[in-house]
C-alpha cells in the first residue's frame, strides 16, 4: 500500500457545546463529545433526530448557532468545508452525471490546481482499493448502485482527508447490496484507519460497523458507547427500545427492597433481582419499568435461574430460522425469541426462565437506567 494514505493522517473530532436552532426550533440542543482519532463512530437515530444536521455542521455545510467544532488541533468552526480536511459521501451519491468515473474522482483535485501526476496516482490508488479500476472510463448511468456508491467513497478517498463523513450512504441500496457494502466499509476502515463518522437509521449497520455508537433523539445524544455496551446496558428506556430487533419487552411495576435483596413486582408476577447490577450499586426502590429482550428469555430450562414461569402461547411468528412466540408474563404480553428448530411453535404452553443479570430496569418517570 502506497504510504500516502497513512494511518497517521487520521484526526479526532471535537464537538464542543454545539447547538443548532432555526428560530424557535432547536434541532440540536447542546452537544458535547469527542471522537477519537481513527475511530468509527455511528450517529444512529430515527429521522428528525438531528443526526444529519450534526454531520452537516461537522462538515461545515451548515453553521452552528453556538459552540465550536474542532478537527485535529484546529478550531474549524468558521472554516469552509474544503478547509476542514474532510471527505464526504452522500446518500444520493451526488456523482457528476456527465463525467466518467475517473472524471468524478479527479474533478475536485483538478479544479483546485493539483499536479497531474499526483491526481493520477491518487485516482489509481482509490480505484484499486475500491475495485473500480476496470470502470474508470464508465459514466455513472452505466454503473450499478453499489458501484456508484463506491465511486462516491472514492471521491472522498482521493482527498486524503483526516476524517470521512458518511450521510446514510447505504440507505438507497437494496438489502443484499447493503450487506455487501457494509462489509467493504468495515474492511476499508481497517485498511485505512481514518476517522469515520457514519450517519444511519439502521441499527444493524450501527451494531456491525461501529467502534462506538451515539444514539440520538430530538437533538440530544441519549447514549454513546460501544455496540456491546449499548446492547447490554442501555442507559435509558429510549435506547433500550430502539436497539435490538425484535424489540425489548417492557413491563410496568415497582422495585421493592427488603434489606439487601430487591425484587421487581410486576402485574401478576414477581422477579427476584439477584445478580442485577444497579447503577448506584445498591438497589433503588420505586416505580420502575422492567425490560427483557426476547432473546434473553430462556426456553431450554437449566433449572438454575431464580425465575421460572409458564404461560400459554398466544401466537407464533415464524421468520425462517427464528420464531417469535407471544406468551404472557403475568398479565402483560411477552415476546420470546426461539429457534424454529425447537419446534415450539406447535406447542400450546411454554415454560421459560429469565436471568435477572440480563434484564434492564428503568425509572418509571425519568427513563434512566437503575
Amino acid at each position, binding site marked *: 500500500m502506497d504510504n500516502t494514505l497513512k494511518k497517521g493522517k487520521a484526526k479526532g473530532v471535537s464537538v464542543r457545546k454545539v447547538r443548532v436552532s432555526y428560530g424557535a426550533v432547536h434541532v440540536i440542543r447542546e452537544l458535547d463529545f469527542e471522537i477519537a482519532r481513527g475511530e468509527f463512530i455511528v450517529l444512529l437515530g430515527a429521522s428528525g433526530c438531528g443526526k444529519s444536521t450534526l454531520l452537516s455542521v461537522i462538515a461545515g455545510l451548515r*453553521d*452552528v*448557532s*453556538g*459552540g*465550536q467544532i474542532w478537527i485535529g488541533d484546529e*478550531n*474549524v*468552526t*468558521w*472554516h469552509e468545508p474544503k478547509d476542514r480536511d474532510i471527505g464526504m459521501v452522500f446518500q444520493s451519491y451526488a456523482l457528476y452525471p456527465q463525467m466518467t468515473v475517473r472524471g468524478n474522482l479527479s474533478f475536485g483535485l483538478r479544479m483546485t490546481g493539483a499536479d497531474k501526476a499526483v491526481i493520477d496516482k491518487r485516482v489509481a490508488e482509490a480505484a484499486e482499493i475500491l475495485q473500480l479500476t476496470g470502470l474508470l472510463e464508465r459514466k455513472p448511468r452505466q454503473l450499478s448502485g453499489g458501484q456508484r456508491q463506491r465511486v462516491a467513497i472514492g471521491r472522498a478517498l482521493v482527498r486524503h482527508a483526516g476524517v470521512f463523513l458518511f450521510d446514510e450512504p447505504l440507505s438507497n441500496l437494496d438489502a443484499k447490496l447493503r450487506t455487501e457494502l457494509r462489509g467493504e466499509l468495515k474492511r476499508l476502515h481497517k485498511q485505512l484507519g481514518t476517522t469515520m463518522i457514519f450517519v444511519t437509521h439502521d441499527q444493524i449497520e450501527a451494531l456491525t460497523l461501529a467502534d462506538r455508537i451515539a444514539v440520538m433523539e430530538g437533538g440530544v445524544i441519549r447514549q454513546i458507547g460501544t455496540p456491546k455496551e449499548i446492547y447490554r446496558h442501555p442507559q435509558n428506556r429510549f435506547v433500550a427500545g430502539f436497539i435490538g430487533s425484535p424489540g425489548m419487552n417492557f413491563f410496568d411495576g415497582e422495585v421493592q427492597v427488603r434489606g439487601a435483596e430487591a425484587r421487581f413486582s410486576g402485574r401478576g408476577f414477581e422477579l427476584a433481582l439477584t445478580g442485577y447490577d444497579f447503577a448506584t450499586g445498591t438497589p433503588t426502590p420505586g416505580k420502575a419499568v422492567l425490560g427483557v429482550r426476547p432473546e434473553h428469555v430462556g426456553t431450554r430450562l437449566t433449572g438454575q435461574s431464580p425465575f421460572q414461569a409458564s404461560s400459554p402461547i398466544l401466537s407464533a411468528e415464524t421468520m425462517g430460522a427464528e420464531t417469535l412466540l407471544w406468551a404472557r408474563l403475568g398479565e402483560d404480553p411477552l415476546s420470546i425469541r426461539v429457534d424454529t428448530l425447537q419446534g415450539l411453535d406447535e406447542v400450546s404452553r411454554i415454560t421459560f426462565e429469565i436471568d435477572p443479570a440480563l434484564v434492564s430496569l428503568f425509572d418509571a418517570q425519568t427513563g434512566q437506567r437503575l
Partner: protein
Amino acid sequence: MNHAAIPEGPKPRQISASRIAIYVFLGLSAVFFLLPVYVMIITSLKPMAEIRTGNLFAFPKEITLDAWAKAWSGACTGRVCEGIRPGMLNSFKIAIPGTLFPVIVGAINGYALSFWRFRGANLVFTMLLVSTFVPIQVFIFPLVRMMTATGLYGTLPGIILIHTGFTLPLTTLLFRNFYASVPEEMFSAARIDGGGFWSIFTYVLLPISTPIVIVAVILQFTGSWNDYLFALIFAGRENQPMTVLLTSIVTSQYGEKEYNMNMAATMLAAMVPLIVYFASGRWFVRGISDGALKG
C-alpha cells in the same frame, strides 16, 4: 481574519466582492431591460418640440397627453385617421375567443390523448408537435385559398379559427403533460362508477385543471394578442387588431415622424399584455417551468 475573535457559533457573514458584483450586474441588466420601456413612456409624454431639442433620456419638462389622445383616436393608418382605438376592440374580439377556444379544445385533446389511447392517437399527437416546427409561411397560401373558398377570408371567425388551429399543439401539449401526471386510478375509479367520456371530463378532470388552465389562458391570450402575421393576412380590414394598426401608423408616416404619438400608440398596444403579465406573474413562470419543460 480577525485574530482577536475565537471562532464559535455561526460564522460572521461579510459582504464579499463577488456578492457586490452580482448585484451590480443584475442592476445593469435590469436597466437594460427597463430602459426601452422607460424611454417609450417618457417620449410619449413629451411635446414634439422637446423631443427635437431634448435628450432621449431626460424626464419630460412638460408632461402632455396630446400624443396619447392623437394615438388613440386621430392617428392615420394609410387613408383612415381613426387612431388605434378600433384596434383595441378588435384585439379583444380576436384574443378572447382566440383564447377560449384553443384552451377548451386543447383541454379536450389533452384529456383524450392521456386517458383514451385510441388507435392513431400517438400519430395525431406527433403530427401536432411536428407542425410547430413547420414555418407558417408554408401554410399561408393554402390557407388563403381555403378561407376564400369557405367565405371566411377576412372575417372575424376566420382569424379566430386560424389562431385556434395553429395554437392547438401548444395547448394540447400543456394539457396532455398536465393530465399525464394525474394518477390513472382516479380515471379508472370514475369509469367503474359509470362515467362516460364527457362526464368524467366535466366532473373529474376539469375541477382539478385550474393551474394549467390559468397557464394556458395567459400564454394563449398573450400570443393571440401579439400576433401580427396571421392577423395581417386573415383578419380583414374591419377586424385589424392593434399590432397591425400600430405597424401601419408607424410605417406610413411621411415627413417628420411624430415620435411621441408613435410611442403612445405602442404603449397602448403593449398595455394589455403587460397588465396580464404583471397580474399573473407567478403563474406565468410556473407554467413555463412545468409545462414547456416536459416537452
